[in-house]
């Protein structure tokens, strides 16, 4: 059995606000292995960004509170580490890229220097060597004429190019884990496609593990090996990318998959829209947080929070519908169609 690179166990994060205590992350568990990509999907308020920021210990305390749980990176718990100890890990072992490249880059420092700073901070190399590596990184992320562009400022690059620079900085010290928080959400679709291709290429070469946070299921299908679906601060379904797209078990996952128009949707069909809005996490509901919006809610959903049920060795879902007493629910139409397409392709493949 492979040793995991990252293990998050029962992570709970709260925020003290003037409106009350917000339980942003309410018991999250997942594991990440070397060289794989885990996508964390969720909408606003799901807790996905808080979770990723928590791994890097970037949650400001106050108002944030690490209420419970462990973040084991290569077996070592990050939560009790001091800021000084974390600064040796950030950028070096774990790196992060964000949605807006402009805020990640210092507008007053030349791009090449920003990459060099990361290398010099974490690796014992000469300045000259660091510069060589920085130029090489710019080349690897697909920036043409890297020797020339090394000396340019961030504003001289377009949005997509800036994001490439951000990726170069993130990979400069050769981290084992890259956390990408909505890195392509603000980019045009053609640029997004290029960046996703770049990330996959780099991952193959360097065996970096990636946690990819997004709300776009198309992007998930493109990059992920495994997927964690988050709702109201918890992971509600967890499995391989095929598990999630072709055999989803949680009604929220059905809702997400159904709310996107299929290529084959006839336009007079209504989109399967999840009614209502996500819950207020200063007062998380008792029981299953998704119940008030769940067409298939059971009586027990309003009383007791469901545990994670095992669907297969790779696939888990947190819904009472998987309990032996639960009635058999017909999976919604669009999902069925998807599943049939998968079966057909799988047969063709054999």
């Amino acid at each position: 059995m492979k040793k995991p690179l990252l293990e998050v166990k029962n992570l709970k994060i709260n925020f003290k606000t003037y409106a009350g205590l917000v339980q942003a992350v309410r018991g999250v568990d997942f594991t990440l292995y070397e060289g794989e990509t885990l996508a964390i999907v969720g909408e606003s308020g799901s807790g996905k960004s808080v979770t990723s920021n928590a791994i890097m210990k970037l949650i400001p305390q106050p108002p944030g509170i690490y209420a419970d749980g462990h973040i084991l990176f290569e077996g070592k718990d990050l939560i009790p580490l001091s800021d000084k100890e974390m600064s040796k890990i950030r950028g070096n072992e774990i790196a992060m890229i964000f949605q807006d490249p402009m805020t990640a880059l210092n507008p007053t420092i030349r791009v090449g220097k920003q990459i060099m700073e990361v290398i010099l901070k974490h690796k014992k190399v000469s300045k000259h060597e660091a510069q060589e590596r920085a130029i090489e990184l710019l080349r690897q992320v697909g920036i043409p004429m890297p020797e020339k562009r090394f000396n340019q400022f961030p504003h001289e690059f377009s949005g997509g190019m800036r994001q490439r620079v951000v990726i170069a900085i993130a990979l400069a010290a050769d981290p084992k884990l890259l956390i990408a928080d909505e890195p392509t959400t603000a980019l045009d679709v053609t640029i997004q496609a290029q960046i996703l291709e770049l990330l996959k290429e780099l991952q193959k070469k360097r065996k970096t593990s990636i946690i990819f946070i997004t709300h776009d299921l198309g992007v998930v299908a493109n990059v992920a090996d495994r997927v964690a679906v988050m709702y109201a601060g918890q992971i509600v379904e967890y499995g391989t990318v095929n598990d999630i797209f072709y055999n989803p078990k949680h009604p929220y996952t059905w809702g997400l998959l159904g709310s996107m128009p299929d290529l084959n949707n006839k336009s007079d069909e209504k989109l399967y829209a999840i009614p209502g809005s996500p819950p207020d996490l200063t007062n998380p509901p008792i029981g299953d947080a998704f119940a008030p919006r769940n067409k298939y809610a059971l009586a027990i959903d309003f009383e007791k929070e469901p545990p994670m049920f095992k669907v297969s060795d790779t696939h888990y879902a947190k819904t009472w519908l998987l309990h032996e007493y639960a009635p058999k629910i017909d999976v919604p139409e669009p999902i069925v169609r998807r599943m049939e397409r998968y079966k057909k392709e799988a047969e063709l493949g054999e």
Partner: protein
Amino acid sequence: MNSNHKLLEVKNLSQYFGSPSNPIKAVDGISFHIFEGETLGLVGESGSGKSTTGRSIIGLYDITGGEVIFKGKNIHQVKSKKEQKQLKREMQMIFQDPYASLNPRMTAGEIISEGFDIHGMYRNKNERQAKIISLLEAVGLNREHMTRYPHEFSGGQRQRIGIARALSLDPSFIIADEPISALDVSIQAQVVNLLKELQEERNLTYLFIAHDLSMVKYISDRIAVMYRGKIVELGDADEIYHHPIHPYTKSLLSAVPLPDPILERKRKRIPYVHEETPDTAKMHEPLPNHFVYGTDEQVNKWIKQAKL
């Protein structure tokens, strides 16, 4: 209900910004029309000019050139204040950012009824309240929401308030400028369903501006693809999706990630290399109701490639 009556005709619309000697040509001579009751989708990436097009049509900018003809009248030649105001009631807009498009100091009820104040309608308090409530209910909210402030609503709810505001003057034509881009996926579906319902109930015509191609295809009857200020392709939604001719359209479609891992693994992205389009370029109609922009040689070449 699609009729064959052209509600809106745009002829050679241009919108330039900046210095007259070296202008930024945000919109550079585009022409299209929208039939009554239909939805025309306008897609493009940043810098394509799609948002500028919407805002020029509705009159937020003074256009640099061309004509916008609404219900047979050239709207920029309408001089009388009264007629201009009347025009406002017919054409309305839904904006992209649910956080910026509502005045944080006004309640939902005040936001929705602002149009009444401007046009002197529903002066009677009871009538006005009834009308506000009916608009709230039309967008899936209720009377309880009338006295609340924008910051108390979620993004999807704010967007509904924006829609209610657009409906308040009973328009026949609505320009939706990226109305769902800033919303969560599940909320997008709610809003799109709502827009379709309202279109049927009220016989509305939409210009739907967006960059999410799957959603645009779902909601539109016809689609226009914009690139750097020009419409490069225009046709029925299905046709554009399944038989694109212009290389930019092909490139754009090939770049959209599909929520389907098997199809994703098979998908090949087609990069776009922009060929300069000299002045001889114009709109061609190689197939009925399917238009492509380019020179004669370019269009012929692309037709041959598409058939392959």
